[in-house]
């Protein structure tokens, strides 16, 4: 994966070099480069999309809903603060690209919403809703991973056990 990332950066730098005339405002150079990088990445994804693993976002939403709906004993802030880098990346990997990308661009890369709108090519309202939903899903992914390692049954698993179901609800995307 790292090699792919490096290839993408090299490709994006090459395209930036060829298209330098398109850069009108130097203050926007970072966002401009990210936009090029994203188009490189999306071309790669178009071809590899079929190989991609389907992610059940229903499960992530349920884990998150359970957290905010109850008084619960989980102090999420402490859970989040203790996450290792590996756990953060694993959680981000669980998210659909549309959501993970905007959260990464904002929270990790430090872009403002209007810059993200430009990089991703969506209206700012879409950036807002994707960041809101993206962080919800991310919290869900963190909690789902946590309950998987501590062997605590998730809400879905408890329900499935009660109903005698297989534990695979729908919600697969892409």
């Amino acid at each position, binding site marked *: 994966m790292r090699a792919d990332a490096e*290839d993408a950066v090299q490709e994006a730098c*090459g395209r930036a070099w060829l298209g330098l005339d398109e850069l009108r405002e130097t203050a926007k150079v970072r966002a401009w480069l990210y936009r090029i990088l994203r188009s490189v990445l999306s071309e790669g994804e178009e071809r590899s999309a079929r190989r991609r693993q389907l992610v059940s976002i229903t499960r992530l939403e349920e884990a998150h809903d359970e957290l905010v709906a109850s008084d619960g004993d989980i102090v999420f802030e402490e859970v989040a603060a203790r996450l290792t880098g590996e756990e953060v990346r694993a959680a981000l990997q669980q998210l659909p690209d549309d959501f993970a990308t905007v959260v990464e661009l904002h929270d990790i890369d430090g872009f403002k919403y209007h810059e993200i709108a430009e990089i991703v090519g969506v209206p700012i309202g879409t950036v807002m809703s994707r960041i809101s939903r993206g962080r919800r899903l991310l919290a869900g992914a963190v909690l789902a991973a946590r309950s998987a390692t501590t062997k605590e049954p998730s809400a879905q698993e408890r329900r499935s056990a009660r109903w005698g179901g297989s534990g695979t609800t729908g919600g697969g995307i892409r």
Partner: protein
Amino acid sequence: MTDWTPLAPGSTEDPAERAARESQHQVLIDLLGAYADRELPPETTSQIDAHLIGCVRCRRELAVHHAMRRRLGVEPPIAAPPALRERIAAAIASTPVPVSPPITRVSLLRRPLVLAALAMTVAVAGVGSTVLVRHGAETAALAPLSTSPSTVPLLRDVLADYRRVVAADLPGRARDLDAVRSAVPFPIEPLGGTAVRLLAAWTTDLGGEPAVVLAYRWDDRIVLQYVVSEQRFFQHPALRQAVADGRLLAAHDGAQGIIAWPTASAGTLLIADLPPERLRVIGSEALLAGKAARSAP
């Protein structure tokens, strides 16, 4: 995401109010991220302030946003390895000036954006300097500064230092180059080519930041090369603009001419009692020599 907590247990809200509140909740919940990030207009912010008072669920959700953002915000950057930077510089340097962009497709797995984006930031400067290598060597276009050099702190400092230095004996010797190299945190690329001869090297202070000065003889002139950190070099928009345009920044003040371009992780300024157009000849040769050295096996 369909339930919400009423103002107080047993409150006597009628069904219509409850429905209106529920629909407001559904709209506002998708704005909570932007609320946490202070990206909303004041009117919407006040609306959410009011909603949060009565909605414990949204308050918990807001806490999740803050916690998640705080954790991601301290995720340390993944450094781009030096090999990647070199690979990019080499690939760009060896690409011919395109008629139509020759784009190689790369095979990519799922969303390596985090890795790639971080590496991208580090690679940016490499692109800038490589662009200059191309332009400098083949067209050597100058971007004349539209204002007086005294309005650009770096140029002002270089001019003042140059005038101070040339009024006396040079403060260093050529053999000091290695010592000078190890004294600063950025790489030094001396001018290449046969037309210039290194006379002396020393470190100095430019506006409170370290700089290296290399003195050369070119024909019957003394030319000074100031090398500063990348950060210092790109501080002023005039230099960033020149780099973005793929040009050498050119300025003159009285008898002195200056040209400037970025190098790997640093910036170079040439100054002499010569017009910038003459300095460009030396600069182009240096850039060509640098390119040849980089593409050598």
